[in-house]
C-alpha cells in the first residue's frame, strides 16, 4: 500500500509523517509515536477508551483514519497537563476517586474536557450525554459525574 504524507499537530507539536491510507489515528498514536495513553478496548468505537480531541472535538481514534487528521490538531491524554500541573479535570478525577482500574480514564477525561470547553455549567443530563460514549466497568459512573461537576466548579472560579 502506498503511504501518504500527513502533517498534523499532536499535543502542540508538529509532525510530518508517512502513513498507510488504512492506518487509524489510534495505531499511529500508540504503535508509531508511543503515545499509549489512548487505549485500545474494542476497535469498533463502542468503549471510548481511545477518545482523543480532534480540533477540540472528542473522537474515537480507532475509527478515525490518520490521513483524516492531515492539517488538523490532535490532543491526547498526554497533552492536557500544562507545565507539570494537572488539568482541573485530571485533578478532580484524582480527588473524587473517579479512577479505579484507570483504563477508561484517559477517554473519560478528554470527553469531559471537551464538554467543559464549551459549557462551564453543565447539568447532570449534559454531563451524562457528553460521557455517553465512554464505558466504565469499575466505578458505576457516580464518581466520574462528581469529578466533572467539581472540575466545572474549579474552572468557573478560575
Amino acid at each position: 500500500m502506498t503511504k501518504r504524507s500527513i502533517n498534523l499537530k499532536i499535543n502542540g507539536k508538529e509532525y510530518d509523517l508517512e502513513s498507510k491510507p488504512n492506518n487509524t489515528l489510534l495505531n499511529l498514536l500508540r504503535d508509531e509515536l508511543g503515545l499509549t495513553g489512548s487505549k485500545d478496548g474494542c476497535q469498533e468505537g463502542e468503549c471510548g477508551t481511545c477518545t482523543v480531541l480532534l480540533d477540540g472535538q472528542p473522537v474515537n481514534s480507532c475509527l478515525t483514519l490518520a490521513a483524516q487528521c492531515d492539517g488538523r490538531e490532535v490532543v491526547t491524554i498526554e497533552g492536557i497537563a500544562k507545565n507539570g500541573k494537572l488539568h482541573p479535570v485530571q485533578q478532580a478525577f484524582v480527588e473524587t476517586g473517579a479512577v479505579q482500574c484507570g483504563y477508561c480514564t484517559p477517554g473519560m477525561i478528554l470527553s469531559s474536557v471537551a464538554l467543559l470547553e464549551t459549557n462551564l455549567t453543565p447539568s447532570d443530563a449534559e454531563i451524562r450525554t457528553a460521557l455517553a460514549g465512554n464505558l466504565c466497568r469499575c466505578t458505576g459512573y457516580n464518581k466520574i459525574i462528581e469529578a466533572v461537576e467539581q472540575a466545572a466548579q474549579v474552572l468557573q472560579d478560575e
Partner: protein
Amino acid sequence: MSNLKTVGQSVLRQDSWDKVTGKALFANDFSMKGELHIKLVFAGRPHARIISIDTTKALEQPGVVAIFTGKDVPHNLYGLIKADQPVLCEDKVRFTGDQVCAVVAETIAQAEKAAKLVEIDYQDLPVITDPQSATKPGAELVHENKPNNIAHKVQLRRGDVQSAFAEAEIIIEREYHTPMQEHAYLEPEAGVGYIDEEGRVTVRTAGQSTHDDQRQIAQALGLPLDQIRVIYGAIGGAFGGREDISVQIVLALAAWKLQRPVKLAWSREESISGHGKRHAITLRHKWGARKDGTLIAAQVEAISDAGAYLSTSGDVIDNFRFSAIGPYQIPNVKVDAAAIFTNNVPGGAFRGFGSPQTAFAAELQIEHLAEELGIDPTALRLKNCLVEHALLPTQSEIPGVVSLPLLLETLAEKVDNHQADDLEAAGKTRSSSKHKKRGTGIAIGLKNSGFSFGFPEGSDAKVILHGDAEIERAELYTAAADVGQGVHSALAQIAAEVLGIPISKIELVTSDTAVIGDSGPASASRLTIFAGYAVQQAAEQALENFKAENRPAVGGGRWDAPPTEKPDPETGACFNSLSYAYGAQAVEVEVDTETGEIKILKITAVHDPGKAINPQQVIGQIQGSLVQAQGWALTENFIIEEGYVKSDKLSTYLIPTVMDVAIETESILVERPDTFGPFGVRGIGEIAFVCFAPAIISAVHDATGVWFDHLPLLPEQVAAALHAGSKQ
C-alpha cells in the same frame, strides 16, 4: 481505635496520578525492542476432533518465525485448581475459544496473515450445550474421563427436611434461572514475554495472582518455579475473569523457545469468547414455613453450566453449602448442586462467586413467602435472618460481629423516610405517567471472605525501613494485585498506620514474583483482610527492628490465617469461613409497561465494611458493584447458540452506560469492626453485587404485580409478560 491517623481516611490513591496523565502502563502498553508478535489460532468450533494440523503454508509466509502447537508444550495441560485444559489443543477442541496454534512473526500483520493459512482438519462431534440434558445416558462426553459430564457435585444435609415439610403450614416451591455474565473489563488480555537479565522466562501481563500464573507456567513448561517470573503493570479491571490463564503460558512458551521478546494481545471478540463467564445456574427451591413466617425447611437443587473446562466451577458450587439458602437461619436444609461440563465457554470466577445466583433465588423465595402469608417482607427477613451465634447450614456458628439485622433496620428506616418525602413532595401518585409505573424492592445478602472450606489461607508481605533516628521512608513489598479496587493504597494505609508515619513515606513495590512472596489472588473479597494482616505483621516486626537500632530494619514473611475446615462429604458440616460481609439494599424502579423498559431511579445501599480503611474507595466498590449487577439484571444478554458466542462485541453485549445509571445512589456505611480482620475490616469487593438483582425483581413486582424468575429482564420479555398478565 479512635486514634487512627491514616486508616479510615479517604487517602487519594497513589496510582491515580499516572492513570489520569496516561503514564500508567497497562499490559498492552508495554513494548520491548525487537519483539515478535503472536497471533493465536482459536478452534472457532465448539466440539471436534483434530485430525491434522498442517502449518506448511503458514510457515512459508514472509516474516513468520515459528508456529507452536501442542507438541511444543512439555506438559500440555493447565488449570487454576486442576490441570484439565490444553495450552494448545492436540487431539480435541471443547469450546470455540480453545487455542490450537500460536503463530509468531516479525509483525502482527504477518502473524495474522499466516494464521489464516494454518490448515486444521477437524471432525465435528455432537455439541453439548444444555447442562440439564448433558447428564443423560448416551450424551456425548466433553471429557472422556468424566462420566455423565459431571464436573463436580456437592451435597449438604442438616436436620430432616422431609419431616419438616410435613409439619410446614406453607410451602413455596419455585424454579429460577440466572444467566452467564461477561466481565467486560475494558482492557482485553495482553502481555509481553521475554528472558530477563538473569535468564528467567518472564511474562509481564495483567492478572489476579502473579504467583498462580507463575506456578501454572512453570508446570506447563516443566521448568523450576524460580526460572519463571511474572510481573503485573497496571491492570484494566478483572472481576474474577483474570483468575484463569489467558495469554500467560503461550507468551512464556514462545519467549522460552525463541529466546526473543514476544507480544500477544487479544481482540475484544477473542476476550469475550476466550475467558470464563459467571455461571449460568438453574435453581429449584422448596421452602417450608409456619404461618407466623418462621422458616423450618429448605431444599435446593442446582445445576450449573461449567462449560468446557473445570476452572473454578467446583469451588463456586462448594460455596453453595453455606450460601444456597441466603442469609437465613433454617434448621432443616438439603442441598444438592452439580456443575456440568458442556461445550459452552467455561464458567469461572466472577464477583460474588456463586453468591449472586444463590441470593437471587433465596431473596425471591422470601418475597414469595411474604406475599403468600401477607407478612411485610422486611419483617419476615428480620424474623429469619442470621444473627450473632446463629448456625449456618454447615452447622457451625457464624463467626464475628453479625450486623445484618442492623443493616436491614437502617435500610428500612431510610426507605420509609424516602417514601414519606416522596409522598409529601409530589402529593403523589406512584406513577409518573399512565403507562409508567414505579415500585420499590429490597434485598439482603452475605458473602464470605477468603478461600474457606479448609483451603490454606494467608499472605506474604515485607516492610523495609530506612532512616536514622526517625523513619525516613518505608518500602512495602506486596504481590497483591491492584485490579482497580485500590488495594495498594489500602495496604499502604495499614502500613503507615502501624508505623506511625504519613502515607507519603510509603514506597510500594508490587506484583513481581522475583522480589515478592505470594499474597494469594485478588479474589474472594480477601486481600484487604489477608494481605492486610500480613502487611500489619510485617510493619510491626520492622518497627520493632527499627527500635532495636537495626538499619535498614526489615520485617515480614508469611502470615498464616487460622484454619477453616473441609466439609463432611455427606452433610457438608464444617467451620467454613473466617469472615463475612453483609448488605441490605433498596431500589426504586420505573417500568414502562408499553415498552417493557426498566429504569433504575434510586438506590439505597447499606453495607458494613467493618472498618472502612479508605471510605472513598469502599464506596467506589459499592457503586461499581451495583452498576455491574444492574447490567446482569437488565441489559447484559450473553448469547451462546450451539456453542457459538453471538454477543462477542461491546456493541452486542450491552454493559450499562452513564445514561443507564440511577440519578441517585446513596451508599451508607455502618461500621461495626469485626472480630477478625486488621482494624476489624471486612471484604467489601463483592457483597454489593450479591443483593441487587433480586431487589430489582421485587421492585418490578411492586410496580406491576408481575413476578419474574430469570435474568436479564429484557424489555421485550417484560412487555410480553406484562401484556400476558393484563389479559389474565
